[in-house]
């Protein structure tokens, strides 16, 4: 049987066929669908963890118990999980352990374009790079074999174009893999300095063996054609380079750490010029140059941004740059926006009106930074809103600046790494305000459950970790819960709490409008009474995509199809010009 699968679906299928027992992840584009699809196989216990570090640690626990375990995350997630990553690099894997990192060249939905191949080198663990969905499935299975044979975690590195492009995949049956069971072994599993010194030696020995494997690995292969030009490449770049120079000779690298040095030397002997085609960092290039082999790489191929066949062709001089028709510039940009009826809108409106400094965080609500709301000053990484606010509070105080700061963070991000930040605030005497935007789901990545939703990834009921009780229990004295569709309450609470000379938390609560149960609810839509509309544009300033302003008529208009009846525009209108349909 064959099917068109995305790279993410193919990894899930590979995990199933490899007999995997345990899977964990924290959602993050472009990796999210891996676990969503693994969860469809009831043979595998799958779970959302609260962050990437706990996801990896949980998978390591399952591997201690002799299970085959897979853990998936986006590239920046591996930064969060880097601590256990380096440790488990020493410890190894009793049950096969595969760590999937989905990098995002081009930053389609990310804050940086870090190249996680560097993690394989730094942590001294093997890495596989598939170049289509079939390889994504096959390499997932091979990764488990390598993991158990060499007693090492294995990194499976995808990129957005692998994760989110579909190609044809041949299916196989699930391998039945027994669970090996747990045995105490502190010299391996407990990395005291005394144990780790021995383990480090083992890691270096393991690395030598992995180098041999890489030379013999059948997916590291040479295709000789015209020997004047040789291309060394890996991952999706292989596809682009094949399209750019179909008649060149190729060395395709699939096990790209450790590199197949002998194979590379053989290839170099047989071709006249070598081009390295790789996205982002000169990872292959640096290593191959260090072997003393002359190659051309980043002089031609850009380091910034995602590659595509066009860029590769132009960079290698296969074609001349294309001259655009110059009418595409007339296409009005279509920036993403908070949805009509988004429960976060009123909070950003209140931040804007109160002229507060808002340290922000990662989620849909980062869009609150865009005009007309323009209500966010910073965004660094998951959880940073709270701790950035703490540091900034101190800096403003020292400078005699009395502007007020609020930290703005979503529910899932709060569970991910906001809780420790609040503890930091309490411990270090902050007088700041944290607004937790609780829309009862992990929305940005497409509605995944989290500890606040009462459901697990596998669809079972779960206890709810109540944010209000949590922050009160930590010691926050002033905790207010507001309904974000009540604009007056939101405006007043944000004003009061930001002015308060003590630490406070506002839980701004209302479920995401895109949740199926919310979509089913009946609601009244609103419309503009043109006889009363003065064209003041107050309603336009809430940034609702359903509201438009007719410059000629000087009247606002509400798109009937898009309106979800949140009534914010009705609440801001001073002229009674907005009414229920």
């Amino acid at each position, binding site marked *: 049987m064959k099917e068109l699968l995305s790279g993410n679906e193919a990894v899930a299928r590979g995990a199933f066929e490899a007999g995997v027992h345990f899977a964990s992840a924290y959602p993050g584009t472009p990796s999210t669908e891996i676990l969503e699809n693994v969860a469809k196989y009831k043979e595998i216990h799958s779970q959302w963890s609260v962050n990437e570090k706990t996801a990896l640690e949980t998978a390591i626990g399952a591997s201690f118990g002799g299970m085959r375990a897979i853990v998936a995350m986006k590239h920046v997630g591996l930064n969060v999980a880097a601590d256990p990553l380096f440790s488990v690099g020493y410890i190894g894997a009793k049950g096969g352990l595969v760590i999937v990192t989905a990098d995002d060249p081009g930053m*389609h939905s990310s804050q940086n374009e870090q190249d996680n191949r560097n993690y394989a080198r730094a942590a001294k663990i093997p890495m596989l790079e598939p170049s289509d969905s079939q390889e994504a499935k096959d390499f997932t299975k091979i990764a488990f074999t390598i993991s158990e044979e060499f007693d090492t975690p294995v990194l499976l590195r995808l990129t957005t174009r692998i994760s989110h492009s579909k190609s044809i995949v041949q299916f196989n049956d699930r391998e039945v893999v027994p669970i090996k069971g747990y045995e105490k072994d502190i010299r391996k599993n407990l990395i005291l300095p005394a144990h780790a010194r021995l383990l480090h030696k083992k890691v270096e020995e393991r690395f030598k063996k992995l180098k041999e494997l890489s030379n013999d690995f059948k997916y590291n292969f040479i295709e000789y054609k015209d020997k004047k030009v040789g291309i060394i490449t890996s991952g999706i770049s292989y596809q682009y380079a094949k399209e750019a120079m179909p008649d060149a000779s190729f060395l395709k690298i699939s096990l790209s750490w450790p590199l197949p040095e002998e194979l590379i030397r053989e290839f170099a002997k047989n071709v006249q010029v070598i081009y390295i085609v790789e996205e982002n960092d000169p990872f292959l290039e640096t290593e191959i140059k260090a072997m003393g082999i002359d190659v051309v790489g980043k002089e031609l191929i850009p380091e910034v941004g995602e590659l595509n066949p066009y860029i590769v062709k132009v960079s290698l001089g296969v074609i001349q740059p294309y001259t655009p028709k110059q009418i595409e510039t007339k*296409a009005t940009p279509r920036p993403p926006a908070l949805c009509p009826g988004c429960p976060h809108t009123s909070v950003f409106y209140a931040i804007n009106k109160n002229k507060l400094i808002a340290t922000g965080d990662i989620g849909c609500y980062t869009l609150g930074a865009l005009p007309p709301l323009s209500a966010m000053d910073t965004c660094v990484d998951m959880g940073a809103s709270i701790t950035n606010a703490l540091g900034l509070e101190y800096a403003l105080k020292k400078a005699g600046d009395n502007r007020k700061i609020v930290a703005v963070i979503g529910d899932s991000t709060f569970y991910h790494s906001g809780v420790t930040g609040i503890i930091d605030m309490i411990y270090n005497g902050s007088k700041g305000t944290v607004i937790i935007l609780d829309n009862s789901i992990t929305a940005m990545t497409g509605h995944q459950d989290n500890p606040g939703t009462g459901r697990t990834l596998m669809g079972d009921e779960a206890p709810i970790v109540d944010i209000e009780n949590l922050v009160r229990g930590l010691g926050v004295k002033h905790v207010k819960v507001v309904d974000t569709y009540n604009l007056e309450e939101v405006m007043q609470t944000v004003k009061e709490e930001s002015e308060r000379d003590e630490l406070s938390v506002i839980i701004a609560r209302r479920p995401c409008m895109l949740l199926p149960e919310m979509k089913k609810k009946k609601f009244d839509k609103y419309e503009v009474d043109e006889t009363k509309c003065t064209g003041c*544009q107050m309603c*336009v300033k809430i940034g609702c995509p359903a509201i438009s302003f007719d410059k000629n008529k000087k009247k606002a208009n509400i798109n009937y199809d898009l309106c979800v009846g949140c009534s914010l525009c009705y609440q801001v209108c001073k002229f009674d010009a907005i009414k229920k349909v």
Partner: protein
Amino acid sequence: MENKRVIIAGVGGQGILLASDLLSDALMKAGFDVKKSEVHGMSQRGGDVVSHIVFGEKVYSPLISFNEADVILAFEKIESLRNIDFLKDDGIMIINSTSILPLPVAAGLMDYPEDPIGEVKKFVKNTYVVDAEKIAKELGNRKVMNVVLLGFLAKNLKDIEKRYWEESLKERLPEKIFEVNLQAFNRGYNLE
């Protein structure tokens, strides 16, 4: 045959990804190697969405370059302009005559382009305009707009026998909406 390339472009919520899945399924059933690329994430919040589909005997890149697409199917007028540089000189541009205002336009900060279809026609001889929204409304389900457009694309692609399209509709859609989607497909297919 040489590989063929199709771009489906539109706005989040218009059913672009389903349409490109249906196309890819039908191509696979017809025996082609197929690769399809799509955009996720931020674009789901009202941004533009684009899917590239490449098929033939052997496909390498799932991405299409400038001046390579045989057909572009634009679900919204501005999106035909945005993607025009990807179309081959003799390529086909199919434009759905719907306008969806980008937020800067709705907010009165920018203007909707004056005559996107006219602009495209200046460069693309084979431009077809379809009022798929009207047809979908006639069928009583506005959501089938994407399948009306897919039907029109199917007629212009000529590479896939009609039965493969029907099979892929049947497999991918819930039973209760299959019939209306099949009607939508046929309405698009039979357009002049």
